[in-house]
């Protein structure tokens, strides 16, 4: 085994690091790097778009993509390095949905037309996307979705409601999974559509978070006309596209580096802040808690590297392994963010609840916003419960659902 980076990788990391260090000086006041910071206030969104363009200029926005669509065919390891440096510096710019989800999906299962039409504007940092999946009665159980799309000539007419669509109020385009054949149940009869968020009949309503930030939305479709050519995959086979999209197993390295950075800032605070005449950093209980987070951060990074390594090797067995590991890194990473938030809140004491607009807010209020936003991380993109179910299934060979259990004869 060899855990070292190549000199080229080290050089790249430094280049990324220099770039972000410099560019992050342009962040708006109180910037904390969360999705809420990016989508909620206009300054945040503008900064995101600014960074997207800057990264596109550098050719870094979609490094992993093929050159012909604006990428650099970069290795997974290089993406991981980019991801960690970017997260460490709390940089926005990389559209979670367009670059993280849609791009790889189109590259894997999209038509050449789709790739040519949609990928280059993403690569240039121009088009921003959102995801239109969950519905009021289809959360973890996405296949229960009910939004209808009825074919009329060259169009689908879409009616229904999506919810929990992060950043839908900012997105130029959205990808949706809808029911084209109501006769079919659950994951059958679904289709995958790309739709213009400015199309007539699309209404976006905010769902404010408990800290009043605007990240999530409800999206209503009232006779929205979507050209048939905007369908990805065959009609009725939308679930395959959805599954493909879910199967890009993430290393989740970014969410670990977010904590790494947060921890460093918190450590700095503890060194500078005296309570009862002594720096917080000298309090043995606080040292123990901070060290525990540091342990968990390094453990999380090691796990993310393992996933990247498996992906780099590829192959079907590796993909099952990566599937379980990615589920593990999601639940591990989000619960680590949660534990970090709670530790931060505890160490800051009454100051942990002060909002960033106050002069009394330490660490730019990141702990205050953090402990309210972190719950969403454990729920969005597959709840912790769903991730553990995936591990039981892919990692341990246990049944995926009760229905599966009940199909078997009773055991003696």
């Amino acid at each position: 085994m060899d855990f070292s980076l190549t000199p080229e990788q080290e050089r790249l990391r430094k280049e990324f690091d220099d770039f972000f260090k410099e560019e992050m000086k342009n962040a708006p006041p109180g910037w904390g790097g969360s999705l809420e910071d990016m989508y909620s206030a206009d300054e945040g969104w503008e900064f995101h778009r600014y960074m997207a363009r800057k990264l596109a200029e550098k050719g870094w926005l979609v490094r992993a993509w093929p050159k012909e669509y604006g990428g650099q065919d970069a290795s997974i390891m290089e993406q991981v390095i980019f991801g960690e440096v970017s997260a460490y510096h709390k940089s926005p710019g990389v559209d979670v949905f367009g670059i993280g989800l849609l791009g790889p999906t189109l590259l894997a299962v999209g038509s050449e037309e789709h790739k040519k039409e949609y990928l280059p504007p993403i690569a240039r940092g121009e088009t921003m996307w959102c995801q239109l999946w969950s519905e009021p009665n289809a959360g973890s159980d996405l296949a229960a979705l009910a939004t209808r799309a009825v074919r009329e000539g060259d169009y689908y007419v879409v009616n229904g409601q999506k919810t929990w669509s992060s950043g839908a109020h900012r997105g130029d385009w959205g990808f949706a999974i809808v029911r084209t054949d109501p006769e079919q149940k659950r994951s059958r009869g679904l289709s995958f559509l790309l739709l213009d968020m400015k199309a007539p009949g699309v209404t976006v309503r905010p769902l404010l978070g408990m800290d009043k930030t605007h990240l999530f939305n409800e999206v209503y479709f009232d006779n929205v006309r979507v050209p048939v050519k905007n369908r990805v995959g065959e009609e009725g086979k939308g679930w395959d596209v959805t599954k493909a999209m879910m199967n890009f197993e993430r290393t989740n390295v970014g969410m670990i580096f977010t904590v790494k950075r947060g921890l460093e800032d918190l450590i700095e605070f503890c060194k500078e802040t005296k309570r009862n005449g002594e720096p917080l950093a000298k309090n043995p209980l606080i040292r123990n808690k901070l060290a525990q987070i540091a342990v968990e951060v390094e453990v999380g990074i090691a796990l993310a590297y393992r996933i990247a390594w498996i992906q780099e090797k590829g192959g079907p067995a590796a993909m099952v392994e990566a599937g379980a590991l990615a589920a593990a890194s999601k639940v591990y990473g989000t619960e680590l963010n949660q534990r970090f938030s709670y530790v931060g809140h505890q160490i800051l004491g009454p100051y942990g609840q002060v909002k960033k607009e106050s002069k009394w807010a330490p660490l730019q209020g990141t702990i205050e916003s953090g402990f309210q936003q972190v719950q969403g991380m454990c729920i969005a993109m597959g709840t912790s419960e769903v991730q553990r179910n995936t591990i039981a299934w892919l990692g341990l060979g246990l049944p995926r659902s009760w229905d599966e259990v009940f199909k078997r004869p009773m055991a003696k």
Partner: protein
Amino acid sequence: MNLDFTEEQEMLRTSARDFLSTECPKTAVRELEESEEGYSKEMWKKMADLGWMGLVLPEEYGGTGGEFMDLIILLEEMGRNILPSPFFSTVVLCSLPILEYGTEEQKKEFLPKIANGEMIMSLALAEPSAIYNASGIKVKASLQGDEYVINGTKLFAHDAHIADYLLVVTRTTEGANPQEGITLLLVDAKSPGVTSSVVPTAALDKQCEVIFEDVKVPRKNMLGAPNQGWGIVKRLLEQATVAKCAEMLGGGQAALEMSNSYAKERVQYGRLIGDFQTIQNYLANMWIDMETSRNITYEAVWMVGEKLPCTKEVSIAKAWVSEAFKFITERGVQIHGAIGMTRDHDMGLYYRRAWAWDVLFGDADFHKEVVAQQLGL
């Protein structure tokens, strides 16, 4: 031993629950959170009319002479409903010490006005040092003739921005023992030199910065003996801590019931989510935390009410109940999924309070250190 409430107490609970759910639905809670004042004058008047502010005050001061446990029941219901109001500040933090340590003159001046809802008070205790020990008290009051002159900054003083009077914990002498030299003063909030402003916090619960610049207070407004104020603070912190535990009991119970109801109506995969063992285990653990919190709180409340030595028991209750309340609300959000983390859902009201109250009057580690000392460690 008798671990039941009296019939009167059960009636008080029922009427309080009815009143609050009618007068203060969660939409109102959210509106009051957003408002500058953070409470409804109208509701405050009605609460006074119901006798809540004077619940534990003797009849001679306009109260109804109830016992501490009665107040606890009311607070449980307020916690259950997340009532935004200066009740805790006024009644628990200020009327109780005035009742126990005030001169007859002070009692006559303050208590009837509190009882009839005319006067709102706020305790100015914490400072930027953010510790609940006597050594954290640095705001100075110096005796000049027949007046104390206060200078310094208090922080996290709930409801100071709407208070008529502030109960201010000041340092009047410096010595080797930080518990010596502390004096409590009743300060007219409109005195020149007092500036109160709300610090924006997660729970939107109107914690204030209060700046004192050469604020003059007549000597007769001293509560208790000069330099001996820490004893009053200790006693009021005991009362306040278990009272806050009671609010958390109410909040925890509401959060648990809400989660359990949701588990019985939310369907995923064709099944109620409460049918899933994962969710059942979450709820069972929340239930255990709730029941254990209940009994340890009542025991500490009883000791505080009986004025028994209870330093250890109060700290035990706070260390346990605030962790339990955090756990219950956190799992509550998780059970609700995305809807639970929104501004429009009630669960967030409880979740945000859990984190606010966790650090109020000392967090679990603070209280465990108290317990350690009590164990002779």
